[in-house]
């Protein structure tokens, strides 16, 4: 076991973790932040996306100890009282169906718009291709990202 300090959603957490444990399970099972979802465990589906120091990573394939003293933002931490503009666009376009993948969709959409405030359809598709939705909400994800970009 290793005692590590993590900064999660602007809170300092000191936790004991197995050195082999991915960040996903530290967030979900140890800390109790369950917005970050387990979908595949091998970085294929994107449901477990979180941001570390402003970059999206797949928390299922990222060791918690590697996040030592880094700034982790999960879906729970992207907005305070108001919705983030991407969340608002998600409401306006009524994107989710079952919603399970939407953590990954939203986190990756935020990262895209931070890099590129006015992406083309092609750029959106390239950036979002790593996040699987089984319900088929893709047409609305496209619309919502464009809507958020316009605002």
């Amino acid at each position, binding site marked *: 076991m290793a005692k590590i300090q993590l900064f999660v959603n602007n809170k300092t957490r000191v936790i004991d973790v197995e050195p082999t444990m991915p960040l996903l399970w530290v967030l979900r099972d140890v800390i109790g932040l*369950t917005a970050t979802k387990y*979908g595949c465990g091998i970085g294929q589906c994107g449901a477990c996306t979180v941001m570390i120091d402003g970059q999206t990573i797949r928390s299922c394939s990222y060791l918690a100890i590697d996040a030592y003293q880094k700034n982790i933002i999960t879906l729970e931490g992207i907005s305070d009282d108001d919705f983030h503009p991407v969340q608002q666009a998600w409401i306006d376009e009524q*994107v*989710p169906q079952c919603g399970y993948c939407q953590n990954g969709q939203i986190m990756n959409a935020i990262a895209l718009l931070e890099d590129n405030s006015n992406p083309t359809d092609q750029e959106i598709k390239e950036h*979002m291709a790593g996040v699987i939705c089984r319900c088929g909400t893709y047409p609305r994800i496209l619309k919502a990202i464009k809507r958020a970009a316009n605002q």
Partner: protein
Amino acid sequence: MITRRSFIKSSSIVGGGLIVGLGVFNACKDKDRLTGGILNSLNSKKGISIGDFVCLQKDGTVFINLCKHEMGQGVSSGLTAILAEELDANWKKVRIVYADPIAGISNSTGGSTSTLDQWDELRKAGAFIRNLLLAAAAQHWGVDKMDCQAENSFIYLKNSRKKIEYGELVDKITLSETLEEPQFKKKDAYKLIGKSFPNKIIPDIITGRHPYGIDVRLPDMKYAAIERCPVFKGTLVRYDATEALAISGVEKVVEIKGKVLDGNTHIRSGLAVIANSTWAAFQGKRALIIEWNYGEKEKIKHEDFVASAFHKLAHEDGREALNVGETPKMQKTDSTFSQTYEFPYQHHACMEPLNATAIYTNNSCEIWTGTQSATYVMAKIEEHMGIPKENIKINCYPSGGGFGLRYWASYALEAVLVSKASGGDLIKMCYTREDDIKCDYLNSYEFNKHTVLIRNDKPISWSLKAAIDNWGAVLGWLYYDISHKYVEEVRINGFTQASAWRSVMANAEGFSTECFIDELAEKLNQDPLDFRLKLLEKDIMVDFNHTYTCNIKRLRNVLKLVSEKGNWGKKMKENSGQGIAVYPYMHGNGYGACIAEVSVSDKKIVIDKITIAIECGLIINPDFVKKQMEGGVIWALSAMFYGGTEYKNGEVLRSNFHDNKVLRIHEIPEIEVHLCESDENRPWGVGEIAPPVTYPAVCNAIYAATKKRIRKLPLEKSMLQ
């Protein structure tokens, strides 16, 4: 008429207010169990409850106990809106509760039937409560009830400024000796139904607060994962858990005995690892050394399975499912035309892997999970473990996708078995994605052989013979106006467990029927649309021995709509083509039609556009319907491009999203959805309408582009042959 006696029997006064059980509205075999449930616990201090079913608090908040399973199809908001409409409740003050199973009420969620099943009950409930509130206000003001009207959670006194909010009335409700049968609102008075109101669960989803079963966290909860026999019906011979138990966090390894309970619920032999985190449980699972006896399923080879299907289609008499009209006697000038179509195994791959949290104590248990049929889960636990139903409590959660997989009891039952085997630990049992793929209940493999007898360039007899794997039954919805129809099925023995997969057998049969009719149109030198319309000319109701009869007018209307909106017959570029299809989904009595536009080069197929239309009766929420259609199209395209599975020695070879691919955002076509106007005065099914028409429309478009007929899915396998 609802009598006071029957009302009181299923209702009670609690805390000065009214409790109404759903038993008032629906015959209930087990009235003694009507008390309890989530809403009663809401009751104690804050306000008042109207029900196991509806709770009206003093602050005016209305809680609605959702009897159906929310898995992304939108029932939580859709069903709630039906009740809120009749109750004239302020939509913003209505909140959804994911209900425990209520005795006597079917919570089975499947077949696109939730809305149509609950339409009457929910309207009755809403109107009934509105009536009570109107009466209470009238009595309060000393006026006639007819002088009061309900709107937006207030009762207004007509021709005055007097109004009173629903919450203020709950203590004023009294019961008369008899209660009036509620009157329903007229369609033109609807404020919610028919409008694209927002889905209530979306704010929770986008903030990570939507309560999936996998997110359950309880005090002293441990985590479990099961290493199951990779081959269906295989058994455990011996094992060594030393290395697993040496992993930090792993606490116990216990054996789970395999058992086939019925055609839908199977417990695989396995070993459960109990640990202090999901990760430790997963690691422990991987470290187990197990010797299995794979059993008979190991021996099934796919080529033999396919050969047996073709042999049976050719030589074995099947079970008759439909026989309509007189068998015509063959004449010299008659000809026959026959083709066989093959629809493969399909994986569910719900984004939320299967999971259930459970605790077993002294012949009772409590479960926290997302299930499409909590009552079935309870029945199977009672059957397999001997725990009486009254000792089983299920806390129902919404799911990250269901698609038929969550209809059955295995995963909830497994969690209870693990808890019992561990000596009563409270455990959250979660499938790895690999478990979820390898131990999936696959869509039944199905072969459909269509044959017509042609006389004077007209089909006069149509038969469908289906060879179906271990689950399901032929539907035989032969809707075209051909005087003699015959449907039969033979069974084939596949390598693994099969079950419901969104649109069930309508996937195979929509695909085969509409590809076949396209081939037939070509053989008879007719335009695919004109040919279909001619065979759907009469406004008749066609009986398939199903709950609902097929309304040909509705079917024709949706086909016509899609042909107009999709510009049927427009000029297409070289190597591209249009395909059309129409299909009735009789489980939900909803009708779909589709036009696909595809282009093909070097055997690479690109779907350029899908235009799809639905006739689903009265529409509760147009936007919800559109979403289900968009999703259904993408579901079908995933199955066409990446579906099927591979297996060897009884084991599924796919394991995760890298080899069980599904469509990603860059692969989707433009999708246009049209909603067909309807004379129906009630809602019909929506969720499973799109896939059965998408497959054949795409295959028929590929033919138009390439002159190659697709009779086998997934496409890759067909195109490369």
